[in-house]
């Protein structure tokens, strides 16, 4: 049942990707290395993402999420966002996911059976998800036609200098506020996780 639903979902997604290739007016003759690489990355990402939600054992889910994030970082590189890519690896793969693994180990969670909610709810969720996905695709396809990505980007695009400039001029307030947010998060986490506040 689960496998069936999710399988349907996967097929749908891959189909829609193909559909985009067609509708997006990309003649398969003009396929270049970029497309191939992208197709590879995309399919891997989708599979590993599915791995996150189908794996029984949380630790495996976590690992496949790590893989997804890593691939995402690679995709960022191919999108000329080198710095963000590195941050992606450092912050997500390097810190957040380790935290997840750490907690899973701490609570010593093995396989959860049943891993999923009641079939009825499950089916309903799948249905709603599919609807949502179709809506999203609809909006992706409609407003902007098949605009091919710019072949080149201005020099130094996505370098730390540019990001820093944005960060410390236009978004300075947001930056400072975020720092406060982090501080609060630290304190909150400590307070919550401490067994008894001495």
């Amino acid at each position: 049942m689960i496998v069936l639903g999710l399988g349907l979902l996967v097929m749908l997604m891959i189909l829609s990707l193909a559909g985009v290739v067609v509708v997006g007016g990309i003649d398969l003759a003009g396929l270049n290395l970029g497309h191939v690489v992208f197709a590879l990355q995309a399919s891997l990402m989708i599979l590993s993402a599915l791995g996150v939600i189908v794996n029984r054992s949380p630790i495996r889910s976590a690992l496949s999420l790590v893989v997804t994030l890593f691939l995402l970082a690679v995709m960022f590189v191919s999108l000329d966002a080198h710095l963000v890519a590195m941050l992606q690896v450092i912050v997500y793969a390097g810190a957040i996911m380790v935290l997840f693994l750490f907690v899973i180990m701490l609570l010593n969670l093995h396989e959860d059976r049943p891993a999923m909610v009641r079939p009825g709810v499950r089916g309903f969720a799948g249905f709603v998800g599919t609807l949502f996905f179709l809506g999203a695709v609809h909006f992706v396809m409609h407003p902007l036609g098949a605009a091919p990505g710019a072949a080149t980007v201005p020099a130094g695009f996505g370098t730390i200098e540019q990001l820093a400039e944005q960060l410390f001029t236009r978004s300075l307030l947001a930056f400072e506020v975020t720092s406060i947010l982090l501080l609060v998060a630290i304190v909150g986490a400590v307070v919550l996780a401490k067994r008894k506040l001495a």
Partner: protein
Amino acid sequence: MHAAATPVQFLWLIPVLPALGVLFNIFVGPRAGRGAVNFVSPAAVGVSFAAACYTFMRLLDLPHGAALVQDIYPWITAGAVDVHVAFHIDALSAVMILIVTGVGFLIHVYSTGYMHEDPGYARYFAYLNLFTFSMLLLVMADSLPLMFVGWEGVGLCSYLLIGFWYEKEANASAGKKAFVVNRVGDAGFILGIFLIFWSLGAGTHSLRFTEIAASASKIPPHTVTMITLLLFVGAAGKSAQLPLYVWLPDAMAGPTPVSALIHAATMVTAGVYMIARLNFLYILSPTSMAVVATIGALTALFAATIGLMQNDIKKVLAYSTISQLGYMFLGVGVGAFGTGIFHLMTHAFFKGLLFLGAGSVIHGMSGEQDMQKMGGLRAYMPITFWTFFAGTLAISGFPPFAGFFSKDAILGAAYGSQYGSVSLWALGLVAAGLTSFYMFRLLFLTFFGDCRVDEHAKHHLHESPASMTMPLIVLAILSLIGGWIGLPEHWLWGDRFGEFLAPIFSGAHVAEHVSAGTESVLMGASVVVAAIGFGVAYLFYLVQPGLPMLLAWRAKGAYNLIFNKYYVDELYDLLFVRSTVALSTFFWRAVDGEVIDGVINGTASVVNANGSLWRRLQTGNVQHYAISMLLGAVVILGYYALR
């Protein structure tokens, strides 16, 4: 006040110093201790008195009728209103600040002695300084709204100080009474202000007195009458005139220096000041003038009669105050504004003196106020006696003492001015006689005769400390010679005071068609009346002490009527208090209890039922919420997609 206004920068000092005193007494006073408080509070007022004197000198340097002004900051600027906090010192307000700070200073000094063993001294002096501040605001204000602030401020202080010893139920309720009665008056006052603003018509108005004076002539007569009458209601409330005088006798519950400062010298005269300040309005409405004069005269007589029979030393003085205020209103009512203010000043001297003397007596008698239990005190407290005697002479209008000149000038105006009449003069004259009678009665019962003091009190019956007797002496001198600055025209140097004030009242030309001969006759009359009063009192209370009892027994009805103050309080109680209570009870029980509470509780129960119905949606399972969120997203997407 048409003369040039000179802007200066030091006026703010005068009110601010007492205000600082307030802060000191509130925040550091209790910890700083009695000594510090006893020094700081009088010092604050003293310095501001010095400042007032300086201001006065500056004013004298300026050409006749000039004024000193200082604009502090714009206070209310909204639409057509542009009121500034600004001070305006002309001859009138100069006199007032001198009285307020001067007498105020003396009474502060006196209080240090009088309250020397009261635990709440810091609170007391905080209130007293606050009062000084508010009163100065009132008299220095250059616009009606600011004046109203001071007006309310002094009202508040009076309330606080009457109920100063709030542990006693009676005192607290006396304070409340004063407050409520004053509300009635203040309602009239503020309505008057509104009416002025309204009648000034289009354009922005600062409600400065100058502005009002400038455009007073443009206001239609009926409106003027309305305005002035409303304002007079306020004045009557604050200055205890018929029919709103009832609070003042009860106000004697407060400490005696307070009675001297607030309920004799300064606050109660605010109404007179206000009318004098707005003379240009009153002069435009003969009706209002008549009303003011008549009410004044009636009050003078009425209060005097009640004063005849009181046995509480302070009550007598209270009614005397009411009647003297009546005189002032009579004065301003007949257009003799300067004279009214003159009497205000002299009254401040001798009534302040009398109250302080009474305070000294009560102090010596360790709290006893009933004259029946006094007598022969002059042996025990000579200074108090002599000063008190001076005060009595002054108030009874014996020449050449202060009261004589002021009171006589008023009577002369009442007889002579175009607003006056023989009847008004007659009323005033009778009242004068009664005044002299009850004052000497007071004097004899208290200081002469055989001593009726009980042993316990007699045991430590003593003259008051210097801090109390010094002010007495100063005030005594003032009440003796204070009147000489306002002699009748063709006497030695004439009416300096009147001339000084004249420019203020230049708008009000009062035709004094009284020949010198008539005037001297009038004078003689008042002196004779005063003498008669003295004589009767002498006969009743020293020669034939039995006589009053006999008289009272003969004319029982009249006696009871007057002794019970004409049952006015009972009447008011019946008319206003009980009816109000009944109405309130109705609204409380029926309207509030049934209707409003019903509505509220009904709403609550409806909401409650609703909640208990819908809360079943809240399963506490996160995923249910999540799924509904996603559904919402889908719906929105769908809406825009299929649109």
